[in-house]
């Protein structure tokens, strides 16, 4: 009964997918896979497009929690370059990677619902009873940074949920399920008006250093090195600055 429409739907989907530009063009340029922290999703997409426009090679991204990416690398996932949101997490990759270089700095901000209806003004407000706060799990960099910032501010928060990465925190606020969440300042920019950001003063804030490294086992070591160099180049810095990242 369902077989015919199902077949047609499958065929339609296949045609639709086939009409998309090929993931890897049929030229001789090298193709690399870049593992990058979830907070780099938007800026690295832009960097990748600029890198490809210069015909240096093709880039495929896998974005996720830094800690998850390092675990995947340790389990043999085929990455050529890895960029994380903190140095200690990347250090766990040990001798799988070349020397890490810091390419950007980030800081934390409080993401609140658009228009800030609960008038959150700082970290101290997050302890307010009845305010639904969502944090990232301590195991991921932004969760660790957030814990540091709350400790500096002397605030104890009872979060409703500990999310697996920073974008999950952002989405809970954007969907209106949470009143506030601690994210990177760049995530507020990247959310393009779906949430509002509340600044955290420098004295309570942390400096998140983003390191990048080439994976030693890379099959396209040259292109991998070229991508890392591009991220660190003045042009790469300009792109990162556009998304709110500070120079290291």
């Amino acid at each position, binding site marked *: 009964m369902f077989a015919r429409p199902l077949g047609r739907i499958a065929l339609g989907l296949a045609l639709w997918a086939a009409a998309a530009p090929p993931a890897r063009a049929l030229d001789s340029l090298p193709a690399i896979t870049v593992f990058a922290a979830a907070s780099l999703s938007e800026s690295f997409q832009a960097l990748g497009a600029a890198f490809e426009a210069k015909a240096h090679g093709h880039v495929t991204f896998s974005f996720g929690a830094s800690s998850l990416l390092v675990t995947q690398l340790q389990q043999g996932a085929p990455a050529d370059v890895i960029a994380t949101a903190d140095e200690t997490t990347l250090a766990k990759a040990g001798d799988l990677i070349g020397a890490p270089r810091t390419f950007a700095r980030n800081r934390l901000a409080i993401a609140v619902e658009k228009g800030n209806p609960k008038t959150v003004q700082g970290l101290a407000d997050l302890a307010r009873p009845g305010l639904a706060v969502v944090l990232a799990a301590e195991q991921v960099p932004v969760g660790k940074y957030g814990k540091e910032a709350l400790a500096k501010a002397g605030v104890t928060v009872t979060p*409703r949920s500990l*999310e697996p990465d920073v974008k999950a925190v952002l989405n809970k606020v954007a969907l209106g399920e949470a009143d506030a969440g601690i994210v990177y300042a760049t995530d507020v920019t990247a959310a393009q008006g779906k949430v509002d950001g509340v600044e955290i003063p420098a004295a309570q804030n942390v400096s998140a250093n983003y390191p990048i490294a080439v994976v030693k086992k890379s099959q396209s070591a040259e292109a991998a090195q070229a991508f890392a160099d591009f991220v660190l180049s003045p042009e790469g810095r300009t792109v990162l600055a556009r998304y709110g990242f500070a120079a290291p």
Partner: protein
Amino acid sequence: MSRAPRLLLVPALVAAGLIGVPLVALVVRAPWPELSRALAGDEARNALGLSLVCSLSATALSLVFGVPLAWLLARVDFPGRRLLRALVTLPMVLPPVVGGVALLLAFGRRGLLGGALGALGIQLPFTTAGAVLAETFVALPFLVVAAEAGFRQIDPRFEEAAAVLGAKPGFALRRVTLPLAAPALRAGAALCWARALGEFGATITFAGSFPGRTQTLPLAVYLALEHDPDAAIALSLVLLVVSVAALVALRDRWLGA
């Protein structure tokens, strides 16, 4: 028993290996000496306890609401029955994350029913009740499908005979229909429970992840993988053992033949 032709034997072994090898790997690579340490932690015990509470609650809800629905689908001819059946089984093929988003859009603070629930002081996201709801959403169809098939297998003449002999509908249901459908209901409940126990996507999307409240075993496995892979393997083993136990409980129905 017939001898298997080679043509079938090779792909059959590939299929068995595809499922068997990863499960064997889990057992082989398990950090046996550290297993007790990984499982003794509060994190693991909390997650296991919460998983049991949530999955059993989801199964109970599925029985209470799913069995009547299955009976309706099996016995009453009403307009839109096929549509309803398709709708109810949809979560079986829907990616669970999509289910989680749909639940948020329905029962979240800004969801369709969120305002009404909020007015009643009911909050589902980020609560254990929310985790139960997410698991029920995903697991209920397994019970409904099994129970409906069970009801359909019952010869309606038994029920008619009960009616002729003066049994009221409720009495006939209790003493004739349900006992006859019991094996199917048991199998459906076990499947439903196993699915609820393993539920990940809808739960983390709708209910979030907080130890002791919404962080069930599969969520704990996912998070542990990031910082303590040994603990993740240990927790995975627990889930594997529980799943095997569920299969053993069902063996008469599926494995005994």
